[in-house]
């Protein structure tokens, strides 16, 4: 009885070809696209749009409070003959390369040290993080006092010990100033490198070291053939971030020197701010920041393709 009713109902309903809408409704990719939409809107609104706007501004003569007209490459042409701009490029490269290399070396050393069995390990690890927790502006002001031409505690101590007779001109001399700001940046950046590498070190299985020790490997060999290869992916990520942060640094310089003395510590970021916001020339400032993009892309590509050749990238195990 029931079967008969069912049959008759089924017979009444013609078999329909699924419409495009039906297909879409059940299509996982379609649904996935919708779920991605909020994230995409966020990225476009807050990342892609400002970046695009910045690049566009660099092709105009916009000033603060007044929209500009398209001037093509005029801003770049002007900058190519601007010695202050090239000085800032040199400063930025010097600042980034020296600070990044030292941050890496010191960070790795600290990470290896903290990975050993130490008394008070937890407290030591927390202490290492302190420079990273202090707000940049605060640490910059502290360094500004440390390096003050008249009131530096370093000069004062050395003078009291009779080692020097005159204050050290930390921020007033071109090269002293460069090394001083680089030192401040290193002090601030080391914890990030150290703690992240430490996290990487903890993922290395102790059995590998045990096996190596049994085989009679020296500590250097253990580092070179176990730690280093396994740490490479983390190193790549950490150094990419470290280089990016250093290259785009602003606060330390702005608080400590404002780009002085005589523009010797002006980074591209600080020069861009000075020209765009303080000087009001948005177009030119945007051109300076846009000029940073190729350098940043290069840094990313180097670490991605140079350091990350290992197979884990393709989802396979490491050698």
């Amino acid at each position, binding site marked *: 009885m029931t079967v008969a009713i069912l049959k008759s109902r089924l017979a009444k309903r013609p078999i329909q070809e699924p419409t495009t809408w039906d297909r879409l409704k059940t299509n996982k990719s379609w649904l996935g696209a919708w779920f991605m939409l909020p994230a995409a809107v966020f990225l476009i609104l807050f990342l892609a749009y400002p970046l695009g706007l910045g690049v566009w501004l660099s092709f105009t003569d916009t000033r603060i*409070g*007044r929209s500009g007209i398209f001037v093509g490459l005029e801003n770049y042409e*002007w900058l190519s003959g*601007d010695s*202050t701009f090239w000085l800032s490029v040199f400063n930025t490269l010097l600042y980034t390369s020296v600070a990044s290399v030292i941050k890496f070396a010191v960070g790795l050393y600290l990470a290896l040290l903290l990975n050993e069995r130490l008394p008070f390990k937890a407290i030591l690890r927390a202490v290492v993080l302190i420079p990273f927790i202090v707000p940049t502006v605060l640490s910059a002001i502290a360094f500004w006092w440390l390096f003050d*031409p008249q009131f530096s505690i370093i000069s004062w101590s050395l003078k009291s010990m009779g080692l020097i007779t005159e204050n050290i001109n930390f921020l007033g*001399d071109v090269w002293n*100033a460069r090394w001083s700001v680089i030192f401040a940046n290193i002090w601030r950046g080391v914890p990030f490198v150290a703690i992240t590498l430490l996290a990487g070190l903890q993922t290395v299985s102790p059995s590998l070291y045990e096996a190596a020790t049994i085989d009679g490997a020296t500590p250097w060999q253990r580092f070179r053939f176990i730690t280093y290869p396994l740490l490479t992916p983390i190193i790549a990520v950490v150094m990419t971030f470290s280089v990016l942060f250093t290259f785009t640094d602003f606060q330390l310089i702005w608080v400590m*020197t404002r780009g002085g003395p005589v523009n010797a510590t002006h980074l591209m970021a600080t020069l861009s701010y000075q020209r765009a916001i303080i000087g009001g020339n948005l177009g030119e400032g945007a051109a300076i920041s846009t000029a940073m993009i190729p350098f940043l892309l290069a840094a990313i590509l180097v670490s991605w393709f140079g350091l990350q050749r290992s197979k884990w990238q393709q989802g396979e195990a490491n050698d």
Partner: protein
Amino acid sequence: MTDLTRRALVQGGTALGAAGALTGPALLDWAKAWAQNNQWKPEKGAKLSMLRWKYFVQSEDDAFVKLIEAFTKTTGVKVEISRESYEDVQPKASVAANVGTGPDIFWGLYSLPHLFPQKCVDMTDVAEYLGKKYGGWVDSAVKYGHNGNRWICIPVCYTGALINYRIEASKKAGFSSFPDKTDAMLEYAKAMKAQGTPGGMALGHASGDGNTWVHWALWSHGGQTVDANDKVIINSPETAKALEFAKALYGHMVPGVAAWNDSSNNKAFLGNEISWTNNGISIYVAAQKSAKDIAADMNHAYFPIGPVGKVTELHLMFPMLAMTYTKYPQACKALMSYMLEADQFNPWLEAAKGYLTHCLNAYDNNPVWTADPKTTPFRDVAKRSLTAGGLGSVGEKAATAIADFVVLDMFANYATGREDVKGAIAIAERQLKRIYR
């Protein structure tokens, strides 16, 4: 007016009796008189917001707040004050002018109103009224205030940038007071350094102290960034002479001035590290509070006269403007005229302890200038100041050149030996030509 309550009286701008009763008979009388004579009646229900530069002398701001509160009590117009570092007022004002919304009143630096003259409420009537009543405006204020033949702002006050020096050390070096000629100043600086009491002036990116002294150095030797038609004329033998002078002076300064910002010389002077510098009155005000021995042993002097033979100082001008987008232009005008009336302005000037200098001649008689002779030089800075841009216009271009440290970097480049004379001038010339194109 059927529902005449006390609240309505206080809020409605006309009801001064009730408001005045709250603060005693003296202010009541004055407020009544002011309200009767005030030509600018605030719109009904008017409310104002103001963005001002952030104070350097606390008592000045306290007096300012009191003044604004009195205005609110008198007129019922509420005024909301916000403060920004003086370099940041300009970008905010520019954006507000551009988008047509933001604070009704801006109080900023140098040539702020000239960045957007069409967006400024015409203040001609207020300026003329005040000028007539208080002995006229000083010349530089007239230049800063005017766009064409109308006033686009009220030049409220200056902050003087003068020489600060230690008396005893100078005497020991053979100078009873600070030299009044540039040549003698070199001798002075040399002698002071030789006896271990050197001075210094900022060559770092110090918007106030750095810019004021290098512009003086340039102008005092006849150098100019641009001529009266805004044509760039920085590349001149006079500029070279100014640079040579600054380099010689730099040699006699304390080491480290290339790293100085606006607060460095204050610290160094108050820490007995330097014995002469250029600054506002803030060192003296601070010394009176915390280092009385320094306050007693220091004095102020005008910048020395250079080869051009006349006064070539640059002081910081603080103009106040109202935006055309304000819904309450009459309230803005009422506020600005109220601020500069003697009964309000005099106590404020006194509270500023010499940090602010009036642009209306009548206020020369304010007791703050004579009670302590050491503040007297600051009385005349408005009369002595040239305008931003020197011979040229006071508009956006001059503002950009100052903000981008073009002249300051030129001097620092040569004084520190980074560039030779030609190189330093060439860099500045290239930048100026772009700014003034």
